């Protein structure tokens, strides 16, 4: 029994050490951001690799999520004769919740895992050690640009996801199900508030961008420098980032809409 407790305490100790390392890593990478101003080219390269390469999955997912929302929403609202509110339902669901959350989950799966694998492999192939021996800080040179690119990319991807979702909902509602086009758009325009709804979505996507990029890069940097270690780190990124997104979504929603 005491052995079990001992092992449990050691695991807890190990977890706290890892959390501590994660905090130091965050401060270290944030310290590298000012040095990126004269070399913004490095961030642009990463914006392309992280953001542009995630566009396809985000756009397709956004379109289908909007279409499904349109279908499901119509079937529910039509019973109450409120199908003209479908535009509001689709827009609010996407702007407040589904846009930031689903885009962030897709981002964690697509770009987050790629970031972890890339940094983990750089570690395994001694590229990061090589940089240190060339007196170049690998966190500032390699990780800070990726973090900033991830942080900038996700809110933009969320906006694209939401926009295409709304169009997906429109496509199902108006041409396919015959909802009145004027009612669809005008109700949406009247009921979606910029500060309350859109701003809350933006805040969520900014927080998710920060957290997912941090988790992905830390997992890569802290990975055991073997193929198995990199594989485990990639899995951990997707699991931890997804849980963090869902947990933070609840906290942020409670803070913004709970009262």
């Amino acid at each position, binding site marked *: 029994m005491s052995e079990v407790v001992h092992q449990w305490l050691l695991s807890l100790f190990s977890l706290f050490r890892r959390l501590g390392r994660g905090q130091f890593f965050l401060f270290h990478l944030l310290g590298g951001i000012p040095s990126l101003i004269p070399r913004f080219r490095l961030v642009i390269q990463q914006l392309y690799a992280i953001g542009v390469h995630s566009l396809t999955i985000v756009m397709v997912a956004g379109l289908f999520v909007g279409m499904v929302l349109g279908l499901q929403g119509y079937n529910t609202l039509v019973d109450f004769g409120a199908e003209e509110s479908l535009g509001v339902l689709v827009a609010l669901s996407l702007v407040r919740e589904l846009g930031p959350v689903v885009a962030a989950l897709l981002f964690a799966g697509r770009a987050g895992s790629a970031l972890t694998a890339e940094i983990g492999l750089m570690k395994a192939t001694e*590229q990061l050690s090589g940089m240190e021996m060339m007196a170049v800080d690998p966190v500032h040179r390699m990780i800070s640009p990726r973090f900033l690119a991830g942080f900038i990319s996700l809110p933009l991807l969320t906006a694209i996801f939401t926009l295409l979702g709304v169009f997906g909902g429109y496509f199902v509602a108006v041409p396919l199900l015959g909802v009145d086009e004027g009612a669809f758009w005008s109700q949406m325009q009247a009921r979606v508030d910029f500060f309350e709804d859109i701003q809350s979505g933006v805040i969520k996507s900014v927080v998710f961008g920060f957290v997912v990029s941090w988790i992905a890069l830390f997992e890569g940097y802290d990975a055991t420098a073997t193929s198995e270690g990199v594989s485990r780190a990639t899995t951990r990124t997707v699991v931890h980032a997804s849980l963090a997104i869902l947990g933070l979504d609840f906290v942020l929603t409670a803070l913004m809409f709970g009262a």
Partner: protein
Amino acid sequence: MAKPTPQRKKTESTRGRGRRRSQKRRAEPLVRIRDLEFSHEGRYGTCPSLFKGINLDIHRGKIVAILGPSGTGKTTLLRLIGGQLSASAGRVEVDGEQLSTLNRKGLYRLRRRIGMLFQSGALLTDMTVFENVAFPILEHTRLPGKMVRDLVWMKLEAVGLRGAEALMPAELSGGMARRVALARAIALDPMMVLYDEPFTGQDPISMGVLMKLIRELNQTLRLTSVVVSHDVEETLSIADYVYLLSEGQVVGKGSPQQIRQAQSPWIQQFLKGEPDGPVPFHYPAEPFHTVLMGAQE
């Protein structure tokens, strides 16, 4: 002859002091290791020390080989010299600077004068050969593009790979990748180059090329070279001085000639690659016949 003015006298005496200090410094070893101990941080705490109070001097301008079987901590020792790891006890001094007292900035300043050739080459995989060699120059200097280009060509010419400047690391053979890594290691004209297993996995031609390069670069650039390896013959043929490591201790040291003539059975087994001897073929275990008899019962 004009009488020297007090100002001139002072300048000459300052120069003399400077020269003496510089001569004294040149006579001192570039790397001095004393009572070194090192322990890895395991998942649940500190592991036992890898070294048992190692003492080691690396003199300027020499090729010093550190030989020993796998797992003796040769690469760890190289990383301690490069400041990538910190000693648990004892001290490591490089060019008169004790590494444990240096902050990050000081360590990076020192590392600009140290090149390292990693076992894997450690080339940046998303950059061409040219960009890899230019990387440290661009990171640490503000030289005009044309000058950087000329410098990179000079370094690549020195390793015989100027023609491969546009290739990506994935397109290079193992030997070529190490030569590019060597060009990058000498890009900032370091005082010392650390070689981590430079000959491992190389064909005879690549091995010959690397041996020639290590020897020639050491002479022409007046470098100090530290070669960590378990390729005995190749390393002994280029080294000026050899340290043999085993089980956390220096078990032999001297010129290659002295090492070859050493009486120690362990050294002889290691040099000749004999399968059995002081290092037994069998990992310690219960006698096999006892185990078999026990299994029959």
